[in-house]
């Protein structure tokens, strides 16, 4: 796992300051089928390569971040505050 995470508020910090929550997925609609919700809650891909996760800067600014990283090379492409909406 990447050992230095650049927090958008605090700068580069060691991974020990963070807590990983898991994949950053788009929440299904409230009335989506049970299958879709089961998938969202329990089923995870385990990709080799690019992965988007929620990280919490527990021992720093205590903000939730979205970390875009590579599970194979440990490279971090982008980190942003989870409250910041992405303009795609």
């Amino acid at each position: 796992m990447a050992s230095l995470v650049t927090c958008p508020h605090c700068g580069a910090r060691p991974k020990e300051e963070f807590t990983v929550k898991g994949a950053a997925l788009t929440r299904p609609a409230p009335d989506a089928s049970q299958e879709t919700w089961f998938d969202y809650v329990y089923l995870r891909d385990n990709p080799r390569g690019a992965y988007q996760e929620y990280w919490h800067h527990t021992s720093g600014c205590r903000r939730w971040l979205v970390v875009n990283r590579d599970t194979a090379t440990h490279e971090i492409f982008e980190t942003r505050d989870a409250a910041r909406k992405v303009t795609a």
Partner: protein
Amino acid sequence: MSKYRVTLRPALDGKQPIQRNGVSLEARPEGTLLHLLAPPSTNELPCFSEYAANLSLRPVSPGQWFAVGDTALPHADLQALASSLKSEADIVDQSHGRIRILVRGPMAMRVLAKGTAVDLAIFPVGHSATTLIGHITAHVTRIDEDAFELIVLRGFAESLWDELVQMSLEFS
């Protein structure tokens, strides 16, 4: 009525200041420590300075600050401050809950570098950061060229003090 009487005593009561070659440790008085909370997009609190001249403001995280002072703030003053800041931020009095430790001297940076990953060499005077020192979360402020003030939760204060004593042993 409990037969045990609750008595107030400082968290670092009985810890004498530590004086080493090039670094000293000192427990700061438990005066005033207010936690100011505003929406995360808030960059500054323009109303603060005019109402609290003897408190210094230190950024904690987006929209959050610690206001720190050496003397206890009378309840009336706290109320006045809270109402004047009402439109900007909420105040939580943490004077009892967080402890300040001063690490001073030319070797202070070398001592703290053993515990934290924050690069203190490029840390400007007046700058603050929340980080880990060992396994304890602490808020670090460079208050002078050779002085760092740590703010730590009361329950961790004694542990952090003992760790700092260990970390500074090489300069004794």
